[in-house]
């Protein structure tokens, strides 16, 4: 036990010693933005550390030197104008010294270079959806896979409540606000994996909304896109000003892939991507929090009620298998009719449920 404590305290001391480097807890600076933010951070760190030490040394001196003594007399000083002007002006100068590099860094972050790739990040309760609109690929409840050494433009939004997509190593953090699209960018210097988190309280399973950014060498990333059934557009990988020589050099997938939705909706896959974070892979839900689908009234009852629940969401008290629940399920109207039909069919025919299949036309009629 004491050994654990000693280990813990020394680990903490090591981390405190590493504070100025930002490299605590194995977080690295993977992008030029993270490097620059670190520069400003370090500047502020040293200014504030000097001020902190200055005040503490002065206080320690005062507390030792001027402690009450027998027969001692306190000096009756009311102020000192020169001194007061000095300690008003010097902090103001320090603040200007901090504000200038801060402003430069803001400009750098704001002026995004021409992107090689665009990614849409959509927050959901409680998983992230990543869309690659140029590549006709979308993944959900999975890691974000990107190419290293490429400028990636990121559009952050939300399908339900406010989230925040934050990845320390990338120097990236943007709120995902319903009704808003926030734009940012990053350029990951080398292949690697980085931890990301939802940083804005978004409800029950906020803590489970972690994510991982996996940067691959470009060739591996292109292979990954194709494995997902996506395309590499002709404009990708061209130097500035260069024009594509062939129509679609790298694309093997058919040219007509209008939406990011997979052509044949696989109910099990749609379930895994959108529903499993709450209702769990086995359809059992979470006791007292999320109602079960296995044996539940809705997946075994009227199909209309089931479709409406998925399309429009559900909020407020509900009784499932004799147990009370009082929460909210966001609407999933962003899914296509085919996907919704597939996932509802999956829910109504798995885990012993006997609700029966649902067609895309039934979904369309209720939209």
């Amino acid at each position: 036990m004491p050994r654990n404590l000693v280990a813990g305290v020394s680990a903490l001391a090591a981390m405190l010693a590493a504070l100025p480097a930002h490299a605590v807890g194995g977080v690295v600076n993977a992008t030029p933005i993270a490097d620059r933010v670190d520069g400003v951070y370090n500047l502020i760190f040293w200014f504030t550390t000097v001020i902190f030490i200055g005040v503490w040394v002065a206080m320690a001196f005062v507390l030792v030197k001027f402690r009450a003594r027998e027969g001692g007399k306190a000096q009756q000083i009311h102020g000192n104008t020169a001194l007061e002007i000095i300690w008003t002006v010097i902090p103001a100068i320090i603040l200007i010294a901090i504000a200038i590099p801060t402003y430069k860094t803001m400009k750098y972050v704001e002026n995004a270079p021409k992107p090689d790739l665009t990614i849409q990040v959509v927050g959901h309760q409680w998983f992230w959806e990543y869309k690659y609109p140029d590549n006709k690929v979308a993944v959900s409840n999975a890691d974000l896979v990107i190419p290293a050494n490429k400028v990636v433009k990121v559009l952050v939004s939300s399908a339900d409540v406010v989230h925040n997509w934050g990845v320390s190593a990338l120097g990236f953090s943007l709120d995902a606000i319903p009704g808003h699209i926030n734009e940012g960018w990053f350029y990951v210097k080398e292949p690697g994996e980085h931890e990301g988190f939802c940083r804005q309280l978004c409800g029950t399973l906020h803590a489970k909304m972690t994510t991982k950014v996996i940067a691959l060498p470009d060739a591996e990333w292109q292979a990954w896109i194709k494995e997902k059934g996506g395309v590499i557009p002709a404009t990708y990988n061209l130097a500035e000003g260069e024009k594509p020589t062939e129509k679609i050099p790298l694309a093997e997938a058919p040219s007509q892939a209008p939406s990011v939705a997979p052509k044949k909706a696989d109910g099990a896959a749609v379930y895994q991507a959108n529903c499993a974070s709450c209702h769990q892979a086995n359809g059992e839900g979470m006791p007292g929090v999320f109602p079960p689908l296995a044996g539940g009234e809705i997946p075994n009852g009227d199909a209309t009620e089931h479709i409406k629940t998925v399309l429009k969401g559900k909020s407020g008290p509900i009784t499932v298998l004799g147990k009370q629940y009082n929460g909210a399920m966001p609407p999933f109207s962003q899914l296509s009719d085919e996907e919704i039909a597939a996932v509802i069919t999956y829910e109504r025919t798995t885990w012993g449920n006997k609700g029966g299949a649902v067609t895309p036309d039934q979904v369309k009629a209720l939209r």
Partner: protein
Amino acid sequence: MSTQSASVHPHAPTKPTWLKWLTTTDHKKIGIMYIFTAFFFFMLAGFFALLVRAQLLFPGNTLLTPDQYNQMVTMHASGMIFFAVIPLLVGFGNYAVPLMIGARDMAFPRVNAIAFWMLPFGALMMMSSFFLGGAAAGGWTQYPPLSGGFFSPGRGVDMWILGLHVVGVSSIMGSINFIVTILNMRAPGMRLHKMPLLSWTVLVQSWLQLIATPVLAGVLTMLLFDRNFGTSFFRPEHGGDPLLWQHLFWFYSHPAVYIMILPAFGIVSEILPVFSGKPIFGYLAIAYSSVAIGVLGFVVWAHHMFATGLPVSIRMVFMFLTMLIAVPTGIKIFSWVATLWGGQIRFTVAALYAIAFVAFFLIGGLSGIFLASVPVDVQLTHTYFVVAHIHYVLFAGSMLGIFAAIYFWFPKMFGKMLDEKLGMVHFWLTIIAMNVTFFPMHVLGIMGIPRRYYTYSAHLTEVATINTIESIGSFVLGVAQFILIYNVIVSLKKGKTAGDDPWGANTLEWTVSSPPPDNNFDVIPTIR
């Protein structure tokens, strides 16, 4: 020496003591009732925090369900801000300010009484939600759509809003009362520039409350209507905008931070001169830096929203204004150190708390500079760094100031001294445990670990270590407060008799008996 004021009404029927307290309009009794009520909620909201820390003691803990955890996070912050820190400071203001400025009572004694009585009822309304299907769980910031009717269908958010409405009205009444009292009821000769610094900070605090609280009331009403009556101020699917809430909420809640710290500045500015045997250094600079902080406090709210995608030009303006606040804050810190310089410092518990306030509030002030710088803030906002920052402002700042005030004015309130030995134990345990609890949060934040997570993955081993250390610190911090409670109970019964002026202080409250007579001054003093 002291004349019996009871002789003024020789035929007045005598009421039993409890009824005297329940029906009093005396600012001293009301101040004491504010302090005891708010201290009860300090312990309750502190208990919520300990449940949060117990849940985070090790990874994967299941002490609380995720929803219970979110309720505890929300009610800890809401309880501390609205029912503990603000009313504790209002209590000391109520007790000390009329005495210090040579007034017989507040300007509106009955308004003062009703403002106090709304506090426990507002708190009970909010806390009752635990028995109405669960308290609000969206964090004390209650960002919609999460706090809206769809995603929070229970009654928790409604009761949270109604409870805040009640204390909001109480706040507005109290602030009008303070402003009128301080501007109109000062003893002859007490010009504004001679007024004790606590009165200055309470005056600025009252203006902040008077201007900001109605905005909070408005935005709370909008949310209440969105939830219950089909409006869509914040519902994006009907053309509303969740960001509108954030702007209006922070327009109140940033000044709220100064509402919670300014009187603590005032308390420290009263106590440090007494125990260094010197006048305050730079009286006018300290007085007007409070005014500057109050004014600037209204034009910096968007620094809470640097990650929301605001235009870069807007963020620039808010960044510069935010940084500007460091200047008046620095003036105060340096002036307090200079007040100690050349003195004859007596290390009483009250003095220690006031000195510790300067030493540790400094950390909260300096971490604020990181959060003012936009690109750094974007990385640190929503993380534990912000939790560390606000606790160095509100615990190392406001609460240490409040503890200093308790040890300083207790003899005046009850005529008995608090036990200094028990006070020393309370002080050192509090200071050490406070830093063990809150300092490591800076590290978590710099690692990018978000706040308000009910659990964390075991593969982040440093996160686990830091959380365990913080939780242990918080338990010690919680237990240490019972030493204060014990000290108060014991000292009320058999503490040493205080006398009129046990500290050798020279503001007006120390010229009358301890406790002071009902009408404060038989003859209103004249200030030369």
